[in-house]
């Protein structure tokens, strides 16, 4: 963990997203699964149960990859960062409400874009010499 930026970032971001997912369920207990009116997490972030599940799954994937080894963390970081960025770009061109999630001026959109860029950045630039069996 001390020498691999990928493991560090994956573990930290993974833990945060798992926490966010769990806390989200605390505020959406009475909200139906794909409701369009969600609960407010920390008074700022609007979430619904579908959202919380997404946060939990992505957070769990990052956390597990982060505590495993550097190659797993590198792959998880790059993949999740890339998929999120690509979904946003596709969303520009079809402007479908279910996919166009990057473009609003709200705190959670900023955090998600920041996560995508950081994950992609660390996945692509760090731990270049790592092998899959390494436990560094």
């Amino acid at each position: 963990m001390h020498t691999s930026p990928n493991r560090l970032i994956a573990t930290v971001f993974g833990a945060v997203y798992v926490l966010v997912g769990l806390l989200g369920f605390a505020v959406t207990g009475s909200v139906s699964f794909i409701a369009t009116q969600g609960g407010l997490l920390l008074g700022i972030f609007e979430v619904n149960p579908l959202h919380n599940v997404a946060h939990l799954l992505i957070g769990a994937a990052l956390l597990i990859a982060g505590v495993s080894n550097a190659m797993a963390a590198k792959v998880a970081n790059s993949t999740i960062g890339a998929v999120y960025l690509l979904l946003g770009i596709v969303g520009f061109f079809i402007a479908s409400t279910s996919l166009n999630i990057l473009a609003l001026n709200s705190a959670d959109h900023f955090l998600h874009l920041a996560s995508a860029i950081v994950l992609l950045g660390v996945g692509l630039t760090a731990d270049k010499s790592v092998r899959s069996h390494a436990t560094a």
Partner: protein
Amino acid sequence: MSPVIRTWLGFAALGSALIHLAVGATAPIPLSVLLVGFGVAELGWGIATLVTGRVLAAKIVVGGALIPVLIWGATAALGSGLGVTNAEIGLPLYPMAMASLFDIFLAATVAVALRRASNGSPTPVRAASPAGWRFVIGLVVGGFLFSAITTPALAATEVGSHAVPHGTHGVAELILPDPTGHGSH
């Protein structure tokens, strides 16, 4: 060039690419082609720079990164000269300004690096590798900084106005941008 600066160059290219793609998605056709083209090029260059750990095609980037800025400047100047407003040209001010900021940062940083290299400053025997606390902190700060600039810029585009509030996913309704381009504000 330190790994952190190189990573920030990649992030600037990604930010500029996102904005150019978002603006290009609903711009009038000739501008749309140019903006989407440059957006794709910036995206590709940003990813390639992050992956390879080198600044690729530095001499081309110094000039090339400024072309979208010139395109925006030309459309604004010609438009105002001909009495056509910014809204009718189809390029929103704030997003293009932020994308231009990214491109200017890119061009200037690469230009400075090229100058230092040509002045013959001694290159380190082993360049710093992207690891350690300084790199991680620089990466996270860079990610948050470039997102803080990019997200509001995207929000100010036409595609941004079609976005749903976060937490309201699951509504499968297709909203297409106005096919005649700008003009529905």
